[in-house]
């Protein structure tokens, strides 16, 4: 499903060159739950941006569903983000003063899904993350955990190939964080592919496979034998 090979990213500002990623290669198959772990500055955010089609690598290949993302135009990248990737951000990134329902519908609006269909799907996914009675709450009326669950529903809305979560529990109290991880594991059980970026070992512990990144390189990559369960 995802295949990256010899991926590197170099930031240039004037004479200075900063290597964020160098020679990163791995493969992720359908149905996996992968945590990408590393301390801040390790290059994991850069990797997540490239996997999310938000940024292009300096060199290397990135195949998503056997299409080479590296060679795409801005509008093609927008389409990939819309149809194949469900984003879950650390700071939720919901539209302010907008209902949960409308937030979940947003990616479907850009995909041209009809009005009725949008509503049906948005309600379904909000129910799935346990927000059946919060359809019309705006983001400032919801707790952090609830906002992140709206974001998960939004990520699922287009039934994407991968769910890409960037520090999904970074701003959330630990009890609610466990609830989010529970949802991830359930979704993974239903066959969703999940890639989660985190610097917290206990959060990474919920994944089936953990890739460690250090100084822009893969330091370790293996199955998580002691997967945590709620």
């Amino acid at each position, binding site marked *: 499903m995802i295949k990256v090979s010899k991926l590197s990213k170099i930031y240039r500002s004037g004479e200075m060159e900063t290597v964020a990623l160098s020679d990163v290669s791995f493969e992720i198959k359908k149905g996996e739950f992968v945590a990408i772990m590393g301390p801040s500055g390790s290059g994991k955010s850069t990797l997540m941006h490239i996997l999310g089609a938000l940024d292009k690598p300096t060199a290397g290949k990135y195949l998503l569903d056997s299409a080479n993302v590296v060679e795409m135009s*801005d509008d093609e990248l927008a389409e990939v983000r819309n*149809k194949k990737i469900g*984003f879950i951000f650390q700071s939720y990134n919901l539209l302010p003063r907008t209902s949960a329902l409308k937030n979940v519908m947003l990616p479907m609006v850009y995909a041209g899904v009809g009005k009725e269909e949008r509503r049906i799907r948005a309600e379904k996914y909000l129910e799935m993350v346990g927000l059946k009675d919060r359809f019309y709450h705006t983001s400032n009326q919801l707790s952090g955990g609830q906002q992140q669950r709206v974001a998960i529903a939004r990520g699922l809305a287009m039934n994407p190939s991968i769910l890409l979560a960037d520090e999904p529990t970074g701003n959330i109290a630990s009890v609610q964080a466990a609830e989010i991880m529970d949802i991830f594991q359930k979704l993974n059980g239903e066959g969703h592919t999940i890639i989660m970026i985190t610097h917290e070992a206990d959060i990474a512990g919920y994944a089936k496979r953990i890739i460690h990144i250090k100084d822009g390189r893969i330091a370790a990559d293996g199955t998580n034998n002691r997967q945590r369960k709620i």
Partner: protein
Amino acid sequence: MDYREMFIESLSTLTLNKLRTGLAILGIVIGIGSVIALVSLGQASQKAVESQIQSLGSNLLTVMPGSSQEGGVRGAAGARTTLTYDDAKAIETSDAITTVKSVSPEYSGRAQAVAGRNNINTSVMGVTPLYAKVRKIDISSGNFINDRDVTAVSKVAVLGPTTAADLFGEDVNPVGRTVRINSQTLSVIGVTVSKGGSGFQNQDDIIYVPLTTVQKQLFGVNYLSTISLEAESEEVMTEAQNQVGYLLLQRHKLDDPLEADFSIFSQQDILDTASQVTGTFTTLLSGVAAISLLVGGIGIMNVMLVTVTERTREIGLRKALGAKKKVVITQFLTESVILTFTGGLFGIILGIFVSYLFSAFMSFAFVVSPKSILLAFAVSAAIGIVFGLYPARKAANLEPIEALRYE
């Protein structure tokens, strides 16, 4: 995302910050409003001038003394004393003149008119009976000056309605009363119908007196200030101009038309000059109004740029979720066009209201051309696109990761 949804979404975004939206719209309202008001003011004053000049008679030729060249100095028209009552009689009786229907010799001056305790300064016009025909003067009560008044140098006067009201009060019929002008007592024999008139000259503030009386009794002169001629038809105006010109040159013993000590204008000449002047004014005023519209447009651009900066994160999110450049551009353009279009709408209402006030208080015609309204709509939409495009493109070109990181 269809346009209806885009429109509704833009509308709800704009209502979030009502004060800012309102102020941005206000710039356009004032711009469009002043363009509409000034254009219709210009058109109204042009119409007023035209109808005023046309009300004097469209077949009218005016002979004025002066405009001769003397040693390189061109005398001002009307400042000389070369036209006489005999000239006018000659035009009337000459066999060479075939295209002139009526001749009206005139002498006009200003004088103090006194009736009872009322004392006004007004224009005194020495005329013959034909004046009423040539200048289309109608009498509302009494009679106009007749031939016997002229030959007998009668001390009679016909008042314009404004003068009548000033001297004797409103709703008083002054016929039979007397008025003193330059220590002569004249009896009032008639009052004319109002010709309306504002702007250049009030045609109702006037006293008509037999030409001979004015020349001999009131001002002591033997020349005329103008001779008004009515041509047989509009088609023979040029011919009439030539015939009269030739006759007067002969009578004044001049060979070269360039040395003529008189000039002949047609109403068309005067109309053309006046329209040209008001036309220039209209253009000038519209130009000033257009500048205010430009300033309004810059205001829109400013507000849109602030909006884009404020909503950087939101734009980043929308792009991350799959909004293409075109969609982002369209969204922001929709917002700016809604701003300017609303401004245009209220501006048109304001402009029409202001032109209505002008027409009500300055007795101009109330003209609002549909063309200028249509143009205002088109211009306001165009301003939205032109001044909204840069901010919209700025938004569309934001890098999604940079925008998402923006605090």
